[in-house]
């Protein structure tokens, strides 16, 4: 199969322990949505070793291209970027998108520098706009703690590069009927191109309850002055069968692991039920809560922005309210 | 002011503000409520070098000038006037030692005081005399190789937390102001008795009380400077103290204004923020005007002081004006806060209680007006 040149949206797949990351699927989903609307093919590009690249077809990629070599077994941004540069110079795609993860954050700046093209990092959404015959990738990027969303474009050069934060886009449902042949990219990377070596990996193990998949979320914020008060949220979560989340300051305090942080610098969640206690509701937190059926907020400050997002609100102290709520539910 | 000095002042203000926000502000309310001396905060300030900003590097200080002194006090007062007062009291006692004590005495105490390792207190006021400093009753009688001090000192800030006390006592009872000398008394002197702490309504995180000297024997070398020159030293010191009060007043006005502004912008009445009402705007405007005036006066006094000129008259004007402005700003802030302003839940009532002291300490407003008026009519 012959790859299209001078066009198309490319997604650079990231992977860990032989598995593709969720953000890879999210990006393919978004790219195929944009591709359909603007008549662009979606190419997923994989660099690595021992990966089942054909799986990316199930998520909506039109083409999957795979550079396989044992040298690529461990992630190294320099060797990956060198290979990607060769591909880019050959096919000159319209846009290349990465997840804003360990892969994308390190490779994308190297690739942008090599190709002397524009890159915007940590976007939360992408659009395509056609202007003067050119298809522009509109890169939606939060600025100033997420209070502002800036549209960034790279109007004079191609490819247009962006990284997108994991969890910001909907993950498509895989369809095994969609499949195709993985195109092998001939490569011969050199060991000397590896500039870094991963010596040891320590996985965190408390990711058992994935907050993004939870339909009921109980979230706490700075209104809780003591850790033991905040921890009563787990009692409420158990009563309702939900998961506890938090705002950034509490994660910084070390009260809860950052995998439970909701918001632009944490996770975007779309639970059916969300209750925020003691959260003032800065934009960077609230924009992380999407498509809820029921949004409840309790805060001592009547002017807290969170009430603008809530279906039901109550002005009061979160700690004593929580006690009351738990006793009502019991 | 030249460029390095501007940079120095900005860098200093930034540094102390960051420190204060992290290390003092979280405890400011608590120390007011409990009335306990914030030892932890004081130790951290010492570690940062805040007790010797205007002391020469050779004594362990930071070698800056009066600008630095007032910046630190203003920033402290913006968070906790009590802590500012503690530092001010320390500076006051340190001043006559630094400027008038002989080298031997300085070698003994300066370093530990400039680094804040030890605290000191200045004892001028007595139960029977405050602003009337020439009339002190405390006596120092010279014996062969020591002085014997007897008397009582009241309203000493740092009275029970200090290691050194600078005490004004009469060495010549017949000579009035010209018979006063200053002495250094060490904490462990058996003739020094630490009395009761005052239960003050403001500045509650500062440590104020009485001490008694009872046949308190001190070596001759603990005389600060020259015998019978103590009154002049004390008056010079008070000039510095009044400059400090100006800085503390400004810190309080700044805080009152910040609190009032934030509250007025978020509190709504009859469908709009109260900041949109002229009555509130006028109070805010008065705070701005008084802040501007106080700052201008302080800057003027500091510049004179840095040039080595006499500041007695001007610093008195600054002290009267800024202390009254601070009380007014705090009262207006309470008014803007309405019922909430009357509650200890909010910080503005503390500002008012703290501010009031500034009209009394280091020369009451009335004494200073007399001083200024008499000078004009001389």
């Amino acid at each position: 199969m012959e790859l299209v040149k001078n066009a198309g949206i490319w997604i650079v797949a990231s992977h860990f322990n032989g598995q593709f990351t969720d953000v890879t699927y999210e990006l393919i989903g978004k790219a195929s949505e944009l591709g359909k609307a603007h008549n662009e093919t979606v190419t997923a590009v994989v660099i690595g070793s021992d990966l089942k690249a054909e799986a990316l077809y199930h998520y909506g990629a039109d083409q999957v291209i795979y550079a396989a070599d044992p040298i690529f077994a461990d992630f190294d941004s320099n060797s990956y970027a060198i290979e990607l540069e060769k591909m880019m110079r050959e096919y000159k795609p319209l846009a290349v998108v990465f997840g804003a993860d360990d892969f994308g954050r390190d490779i994308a700046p190297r690739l942008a520098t090599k190709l002397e093209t524009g890159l915007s990092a940590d976007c939360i959404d992408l659009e395509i706009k056609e202007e003067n015959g050119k298809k522009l990738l509109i890169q939606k990027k939060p600025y100033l703690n997420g209070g502002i969303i800036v549209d960034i474009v790279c109007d004079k050069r191609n490819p247009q590069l962006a990284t997108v934060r994991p969890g910001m886009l909907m993950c498509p449902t895989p369809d095994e009927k969609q499949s195709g042949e993985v195109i092998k990219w001939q490569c011969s990377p050199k060991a000397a191109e590896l500039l870094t070596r991963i010596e040891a990996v320590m996985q965190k193990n408390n990711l058992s309850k994935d907050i993004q998949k939870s339909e009921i979320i109980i979230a706490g914020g700075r209104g809780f002055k003591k850790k033991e008060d905040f921890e009563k949220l787990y009692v409420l979560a158990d009563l309702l069968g939900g998961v506890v989340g938090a705002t950034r300051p509490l994660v910084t305090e070390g009260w809860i692991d950052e995998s439970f942080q909701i918001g632009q610098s944490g996770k975007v969640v779309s639970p059916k039920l969300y209750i925020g206690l003691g959260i003032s509701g800065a934009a960077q937190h609230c924009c992380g809560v999407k498509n809820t059926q029921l949004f409840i907020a309790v805060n001592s400050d009547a002017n807290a922005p969170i009430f603008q997002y809530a279906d039901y609100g109550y002005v009061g102290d979160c700690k004593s309210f929580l006690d009351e709520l738990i006793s009502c539910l019991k | 002011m030249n460029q390095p000095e501007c940079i120095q002042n900005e860098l200093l203000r930034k540094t102390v503000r960051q420190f204060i926000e992290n290390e003092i502000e979280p405890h400011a309310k608590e120390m007011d409520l409990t009335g306990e001396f914030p030892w932890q905060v004081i130790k951290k300030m010492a570690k940062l070098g805040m007790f010797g900003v205007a002391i020469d590097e050779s004594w362990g200080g930071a070698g800056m000038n009066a600008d630095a002194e007032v910046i630190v006090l203003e920033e402290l007062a913006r968070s906790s006037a009590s802590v500012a007062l503690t530092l001010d009291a320390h500076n006051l006692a340190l001043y006559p030692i630094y400027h008038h004590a002989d080298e031997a005495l300085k070698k003994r105490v300066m370093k530990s005081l400039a680094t804040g390792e030890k605290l000191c207190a200045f004892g001028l006021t007595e139960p029977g005399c405050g602003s009337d400093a020439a009339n002190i009753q405390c006596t120092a009688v010279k014996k062969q190789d020591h002085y014997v001090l007897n008397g009582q000192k009241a309203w000493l800030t740092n009275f029970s937390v200090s290691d050194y006390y600078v005490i004004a006592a009469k060495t010549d009872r017949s000579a009035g102001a010209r018979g006063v000398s200053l002495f250094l008394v060490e904490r462990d002197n058996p003739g020094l008795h630490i009395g009761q702490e005052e239960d003050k309504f403001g500045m509650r995180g500062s440590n104020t009380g009485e001490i008694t000297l009872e046949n308190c024997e001190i070596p001759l070398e603990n005389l600060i400077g020259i015998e019978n020159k103590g009154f002049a030293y004390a008056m010079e010191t008070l000039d510095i103290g009044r400059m400090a009060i100006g800085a503390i007043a400004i810190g309080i006005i700044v805080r009152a204004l910040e609190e009032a502004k934030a509250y007025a912008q978020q509190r709504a009445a009859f469908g709009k923020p109260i900041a949109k009402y002229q009555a509130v705007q006028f109070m805010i405007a008065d705070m701005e005007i008084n802040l501007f005036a106080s700052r201008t006066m302080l800057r003027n006094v500091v510049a004179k002081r840095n040039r080595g000129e006499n500041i007695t008259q001007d610093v008195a004007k600054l002290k009267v004006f800024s202390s009254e402005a601070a009380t007014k700003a705090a009262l207006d802030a309470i008014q803007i806060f309405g019922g909430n302003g009357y509650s200890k839940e909010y910080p503005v009532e503390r500002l008012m209680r703290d501010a009031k002291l500034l009209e009394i300490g280091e020369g009451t407003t009335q004494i200073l007006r007399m001083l200024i008026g008499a000078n004009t009519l001389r």
Partner: protein
Amino acid sequence: MKIVVLVKQVPDLSGDIKIDPKTKNLDRRDSSVVINPYDLQALTLALQLKQQFNAETCAISMGPQKAEMALYECLAMGIDEAVLISDRAFVGSDTLATTLIIAQAIRKKIPDVTMILCGKHAVDAETGIVGPGVAERMGLPCVSNVCECPEIKNGKARVRRQSDTGYQTVSCALPAVFTIAETSSEPNYIHMNNIKKASNAHIETMTLASLQLERSKVGIEGSPTVVGSLNLVEMNKETVMLTGDQKEAACRIAALLQKTAKGV
């Protein structure tokens, strides 16, 4: 050993920030500027390395003239030397142009640099591109999200980094670029006794001319990305505010919760 720390001055975003709805930018009247908090972590590590290895340290910042305040702060913290990269020609530089300028400045100022440290990203724009971008320009390895002081031995470094799923230990040859995430080291406050000396220090300014860069490669002309429209994040839902005492409201919410939770 020579260490360069890249420092950016950013608006203080630690408190509540206000955005001017007209300019759609930060309401700067109340806000102060600070050293990017992650760069502060990088400075702290640099000072640890200075103690450990007697390393020479240099802070470099690109920005307007007034960004030199951040550099005076670095000097007061104990950094040995400071360079401000400032030129009207650099205004409007995006990350691509910025990495070109900074890499050139490092080559000119400290050609034999051992380590380049910077924050994992600046808190205002949160791009995190400059560290790896400078590494690419200089042909150096880059490890991002480093969270501990690097171990240095025989011209190699071993670092611990935060990864997406936990921690990794990564090694590389020196010179290298490390971007710094939260570390456990407490940043030190500036001691009062360092302020006077730092304020009187000389800060070198590097310009387009002294860096010998082409005008067309920097500033707006040298920047492929363009900032389009700015949109305020706003949301106004119909909110039912519950009144009455706490018990009443709690019971009402409990009922709502139970109903919705059942449907899940």
